[in-house]
């Protein structure tokens, strides 16, 4: 266990932003913090590096309190925030050199690490270019490079894929994997479960400052994902009637919602998936609904997150 979070609670002006949160992060893993905007992810990450002292509880880094050993521990942590913490008027090399010096690195180490991190984030060709002239994705990679410059044991990435297009997100995901492969423990936050699910070894779901769920994706799915999701599209699309009719027909409906002119039904994994589909196709005829499309999904972590953290 690298980090142990012990019952931390943080309040800002009577608003409890973190409420009795406890979990641990292992060395070398990619740990995801997931939660909606305002769930307390960033506050938690900042508490992790000792910036926000909790009202109660503690965070232990290799058994030492972060808040009592902040300066020492900060040397071992790299942090890339939602906004790129880089100087746009400095070149990539100058940015890296500056932050390296702030971390007390020697010239030789700065030189070596500059080369290393630029190779890692694949920006070697842009060494002397001004950061402000890079694309958004490149800036994000430079930001991560800056966070990696002093070879931290832990890299904290606050929503690393926010604002990036799918291709860039893929690049960042690959980069995160590469960094982990170098032995760095990575803690990242996001409000898109589908983005961090393939990356993370374990995740902690935050809901209004409380820990809603915690574990590996498989563990979470096993624990919470005991339903199917059936997506129906029909004409004229009187989905309320459909739900009523299916309930009268004896189908257990755990949950439902209409989204993008589609009906999403959550049903227990009591029957085989094709049995559900067949029954629903048949049931629509009496109520004069013409089926335009039907899809049955095994419940993903994303949906699980939605169910756990959103509702």
């Amino acid at each position, binding site marked *: 266990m690298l980090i142990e979070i012990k019952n931390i609670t943080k309040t800002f002006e009577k608003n409890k932003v973190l409420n009795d949160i406890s979990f641990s992060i292992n060395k070398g893993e990619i740990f995801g913090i997931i939660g909606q905007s305002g769930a307390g992810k960033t506050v938690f990450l900042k508490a992790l590096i000792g910036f926000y002292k909790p009202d109660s509880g503690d965070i232990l880094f290799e058994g030492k309190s972060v808040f009592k050993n902040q300066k020492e521990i900060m040397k071992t942590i790299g942090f890339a925030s939602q906004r*790129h913490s880089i100087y746009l008027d*400095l070149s990539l090399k100058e940015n890296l050199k500056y932050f390296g*010096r702030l971390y007390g690195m020697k010239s030789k180490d700065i030189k070596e690490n500059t080369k290393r991190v630029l190779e890692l984030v694949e920006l070697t060709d842009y060494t002397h270019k001004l950061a402000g002239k890079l694309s958004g994705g490149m800036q994000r990679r430079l930001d991560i490079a800056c966070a990696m410059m002093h070879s931290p044991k832990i890299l904290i990435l606050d929503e690393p894929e926010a604002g990036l297009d799918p291709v860039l997100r893929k690049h960042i995901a690959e980069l995160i994997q590469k960094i982990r492969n170098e032995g760095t423990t990575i803690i990242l936050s996001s409000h898109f479960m589908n983005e961090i699910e393939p990356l993370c070894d374990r995740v902690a779901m935050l809901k209004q400052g409380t820990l809603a769920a915690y574990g590996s994706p498989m563990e979470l799915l096993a624990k919470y994902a005991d339903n199917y999701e059936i997506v129906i599209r029909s004409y004229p699309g009187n989905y309320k009637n459909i739900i009523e009719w299916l309930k009268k027909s004896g189908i257990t409906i755990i949950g439902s919602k209409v989204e993008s002119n589609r009906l999403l039904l959550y049903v227990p994994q009591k029957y085989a998936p094709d049995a559900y589909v067949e029954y629903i196709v048949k049931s629509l005829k009496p109520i004069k609904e013409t089926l335009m499309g039907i899809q049955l999904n095994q419940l993903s972590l994303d949906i699980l997150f939605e169910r756990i953290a959103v509702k």
Partner: protein
Amino acid sequence: MMNKLFAIIEKDVRQLVHSKSSALIILISPIVLMILAGLALSSSGLSGVKVGVFLGADPAALGEGNIGSVLDAKMAEKGFSVQYFSNLNKCKQSVKDETTHICVEVAEKADTNLAKIDPRLMYQVNFYVDYSKVRLVWAIVNAIRTIVAQENTKISTEITTKLSDKINFAVNEITKNQGKLDEIIRKGEGIRNTFSSGIRTLNEMSSYISETRTISGSVIETSDSISTNLNDLLSYSSDARRRLSDLSRLNPALASSISAIQGNLDSIDGFANNIATVNNGLEEKARRLDSRLDEISMNQNNVASSLTNAEPLLDDLLDSLREVKSGIDKLEREFAWARNIKATDIMNPIPVEVLPLSGEVTEVGSVSSALTYLDYLLPALVILVIMFVATLISSTMVIKERKSVAYFRNLIAPTNSSLYVVGVYLIGLILVGMQATLLVLVASFFFGVIISSYLSIALVLLLTISIFVLLGVIIGYLFNSEETTMMGAISLALVCLLFSALIIPLETMPGVMRAVAQFSPFVIAETALRKIMIFGIPIINREAGTIMMEPVKLAVIAAVLFAGALVLQNFKNKKEI
């Protein structure tokens, strides 16, 4: 620690270097400012001013050397653009239309007698101005009034010189003729004496005349007696002759004797007749003498009477002459002081000369030549530039850093946060120091401003820059946006400017404001720099055992501000995290 500090400084410098426009502004702005200030302050400042002139209906009547032509020439010298109008209303209208800045009328005076003294005295100058442009108006009015005053002085000096010459001439003439008057009086007195002796002589002549008259009377009497005796003699002779004739007849013998006697008698008769003739002549002359004496006596009486009458007149004349003499003597004494007086002494009886104090001090500074207006203004100008540039640069650097996306990474780095304040302070010090150096060098080399005591100046500038950089740092941490920070920095600089002697003399400010202004770093720094640059006063005077207090005050303020900046930065960082 030092490595981190240098990293912060190097980062800021590199950011500046990469942003060429910022670098250019920082390096060029003081030179541009100094050149602009130098050019603005080294010119008379009114070239290009448009002056409307109305010389009356008939400008030719003014004659040569009139105030109109003098104005024309002098205004052209000053670079004024002069436009003549044939009508006063048009001239006034041109000011309203802003085609001219002032209308100057050369008007004729009503008193024509003045023309006898000097034809130039016949004119007066009227200004028609738009008081809404009060500063420009006063500048132009002062410039033209100076021209008119110069001409007034010239005319006045000429007339006074003429008057003085006349007085000198009169006094000289009086002095010269004083001797003649003395001589006249002297001669008059001689005449008076002669008169007196003449009267006395005339009086004496009366007795002579009367004596002569007595003598002539006795001559006449004697003559009458001689005449009587001669008649008697002739009668006796005739009687004797008869008797002889008788005798001769009686005694013819005696005829020859008788004839001889008769002959003798003839001779006696002849003598008697001759004597009678002479006697008659004598008597006549005696009578004529008598008659003449009468005339003389009459004339003598007349002359004596005239002289007697003339005597008091002569006395009066002499008295008058003496009075005139006394008056002239008095006049001479009264005008004696005016004899060698100069016209300029009358024109400017109490000469006022404004002497530069700085010229007296040479032992410490190397002030040797006359200081220019720019020399006197330079301390305030340097502090002004430092104040604006330092507060703006440091506050902008702080707020830019705070608002920078990279700021967060600085906060999480294991670096003492006070290093960032020190970094901004040092970079501000370097940049503004460079600017101040450039400013002083440009002033020294291009505008010939005399700079002395470089070390003392450097120390004061260092403290001043520190204060304003730290004020800028505080403002940068106090406000939360670039706009409000900029406003804050400019407002602070303006307040400092308002509470300085640059706009309103401190001495004329209300008591409270004056007291507050004494603590203004602008005032303290400007005072220190003025003492060093203009008066050459050293910061530490070992001989006198004194120390200039202003740099000490500046150092204290800088230290307080530094501590304040650290406290504020710490507080803000905690809040922002």
